[in-house]
C-alpha cells in the first residue's frame, strides 16, 4: 500500500544543513496499523509529513498505491491528498466553523452536492459519536471530542490511508484509550490503512500491527509489534519498553537477593492462550524446584495476551535445567538473564 524508498530530508543548505531523515525504507501493507515510535527530534514527524508531501522530501520515493507522491504536479498532489486523511496532535479544526461545517469542509472543497454532504457528515458524526454536538464550535468541545471531529473530517472523503501525527499526545490517558479504540474500530470496519507516529509505547502496544523505531533519522528496528516488544534488540527500543513496564536497577537488586547455592534467573515469555494457563506451577511440581517471581507483566498487545515473568529458580541445578527444558517444550520462550 505504502512503500517508502531511500527517503532523505535535509533542512537548510551548506553548513547549516540538518538531515532529519537519512534514507528511510518502509513497507506498509493495506489494512495495517503501522506505528512509528521515536523520541522528539528523531524525525518521526518529518517522516509522516513526507507521506502526504506536507514536507517535500529531498530525495527518495513515497509510493502510495501506484502513485509516487514525490513526482506529482501541484494539482495532482491536491487530488491525491484527498485520498489520504490526516489527524493532528492539536486537532487543527477551524475555530470559526461548527462541528458540522468542519466535517463538511473536505467535501465542499470538491463541490460535493449539498444532499451528499449532509448524508456523509451525518454518517461521520454517527461513526465518531458526536451527532448531538453538530452545531457546536470546537471551543465548546473537550480534547477527545475535538479529536473525534478531526477523525470524522479526515474520513469524510473515504480515504485509503489515515495519517496520525501524535494524535493522542495532547489527551489524557482515558481519552487516549477511547480515541485508540475508535481508530482500531475504524481500521476494522473500513479496512483503512493507518500510519501513526507517537512517543508512547502504550499507543503502539494497544493498536499497532507493526512498529518501526526511529532514532536520529534512521529506522533502527522494525517488525511485528509482538516481536519487537517482547524481544527488543536496540537500546532505544528497550528504553521505550522499560519505561512502560520495568525498572532495571530494582530488578538487578532482586536478582542478587538470593542466598540459594544454585539459582538461575530467567525471563519467561508466554504468548497467546498460554498466558492464562498454569504451566509454570505444573512444571515446578514435576521437577521439584522452588521459584520466586521477581518481576512480571501480564497484559495484551493489541488483541494478543502475553505474559513476561522474570523468575528465579532455586534448587538442584540438574532439576533447574530440566525445568527450563520442560518450559521450552511447552512453547514458552525462556531467556537466561545474567545470574
Amino acid at each position, binding site marked *: 500500500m505504502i512503500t517508502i524508498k531511500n527517503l532523505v530530508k535535509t533542512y537548510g543548505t551548506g553548513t547549516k544543513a540538518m538531515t532529519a531523515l537519512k534514507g528511510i525504507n518502509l513497507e506498509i501493507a493495506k489494512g495495517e496499523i503501522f506505528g512509528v515510535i521515536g523520541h522528539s527530534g528523531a524525525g518521526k514527524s518529518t517522516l509522516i509529513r513526507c507521506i502526504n508531501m506536507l514536507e517535500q522530501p529531498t530525495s527518495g520515493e513515497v509510493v502510495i498505491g501506484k502513485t509516487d507522491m514525490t513526482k506529482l504536479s501541484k494539482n495532482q498532489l491536491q487530488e491525491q491528498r484527498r485520498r489520504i486523511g490526516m489527524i493532528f496532535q492539536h486537532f487543527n479544526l477551524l475555530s470559526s*466553523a461548527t462541528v458540522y461545517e468542519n466535517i463538511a469542509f473536505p467535501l465542499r*472543497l470538491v463541490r460535493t452536492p449539498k444532499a451528499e454532504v449532509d448524508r456523509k457528515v451525518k454518517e461521520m458524526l454517527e461513526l465518531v459519536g458526536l451527532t448531538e454536538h453538530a452545531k457546536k464550535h470546537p471551543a465548546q468541545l473537550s480534547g477527545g471530542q475535538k479529536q473525534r471531529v478531526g477523525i470524522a473530517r479526515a474520513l469524510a472523503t473515504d480515504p485509503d490511508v489515515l495519517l496520525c501525527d501524535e494524535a493522542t499526545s495532547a489527551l489524557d490517558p482515558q481519552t487516549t484509550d477511547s480515541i485508540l479504540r475508535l481508530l482500531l474500530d475504524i481500521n476494522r470496519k473500513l479496512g483503512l490503512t493507518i500510519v501513526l507516529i507517537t512517543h508512547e509505547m502504550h499507543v503502539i502496544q494497544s493498536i499497532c500491527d507493526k512498529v518501526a523505531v526511529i532514532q536520529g533519522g534512521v529506522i533502527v528496528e522494525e517488525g511485528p509489534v509482538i516481536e519487537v516488544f517482547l524481544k527488543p534488540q536496540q537500546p532505544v527500543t528497550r528504553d521505550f519498553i522499560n519505561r512502560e513496564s520495568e525498572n532495571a536497577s530494582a530488578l538487578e537488586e532482586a536478582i542478587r537477593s538470593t542466598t540459594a547455592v544454585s539459582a538461575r534467573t530467567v525471563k519467561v515469555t508466554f504468548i497467546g492462550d498460554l498466558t492464562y494457563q498454569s504451566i509454570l506451577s505444573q512444571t515446578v511440581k514435576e521437577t521439584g524446584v522452588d521459584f520466586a517471581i521477581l518481576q512480571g507483566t501480564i497484559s495484551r498487545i493489541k488483541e494478543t495476551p502475553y505474559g513476561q515473568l522474570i523468575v528465579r529458580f532455586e534448587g538442584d541445578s540438574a532439576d533447574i535445567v530440566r525445568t527450563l527444558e520442560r518450559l521450552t517444550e511447552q512453547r514458552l520462550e525462556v531467556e537466561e538473564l545474567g545470574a
Partner: protein
Amino acid sequence: MNKELDFSQVNWTEFGKATNATLQMLGYSSLFTLLLGLPIGIILFLTARSSSVGARTVYSILAFVVNLLRSVPFIILIIALLPFTKFIVDTQIGVRGMIPPLVIGAAPFFARLVETSLREVDRGVIEAAQSMGASTRQIVFRVILPEALPGLIAGFTITIITLISYTAMSGLVGGGGLGQLAVSYGYNRYETSVMLVALVIIVIMVQIIQMIGDRLVTHFTRK
C-alpha cells in the same frame, strides 16, 4: 457675554450639511480602503511566507511601497497627490476630491493590519487544509479569511477611525465636512462654540463606530 460659550450663533443647517459631507467621505473612503487594502494585505501575507524567489520579490516591492506611503504625513500626502486626484475624480476639493488621498493614505495602513491578523491564524489549521487537498485560493477564502475575521473587523474599525481624523485634516485644504467647519469658524473666526460642536459630533461618531466594531468582533469570536 462670553462669546466662547454662545451656542445661539451656531448654524445648525450648516452642521447638518457638514456632518453629511464627513459621513460621505468616510463611507466612500472606507469602502475603497477595504477593497484596496484587503487584497494588498492578503498578497503581503501570502508572498511573505512563500519560498519562491518571484513571490519574495513581489513582497519586497509591495512592502516598500506600503511603507513609503505610510511614512508620508497625511496632510503632505493630500498635497502631493493633487495631480493624481485631479486625474482620477476631476476635482481637487470637496468630498470627491478628498476620497483618493483618503484611500491612498489609509489602504496601506489597513493592508498591514490585514497582514498582521492573517498571520495570527493557526498554522496548523492551514496545514490541515493543505493535507485535505485545498488549493491556495480555497485556503485563503475558506480558511484564512474566516479564521481571521474578528481580527480583520477590529483592524477595519481602527482604519475607519483613522479615516475620521484624516477627513478632519482634509478640512484644512478645502475638503469640506466637519473639519473645515471647525477650522474656518472655530479657528479662523474664533468661534470656539462651533469648534466645540464639531468636536462633539466627531467624538460621538468615533464612539459609535468603535462600539459597533467591538460588538461585531465579539459576535464572530469563537475561541
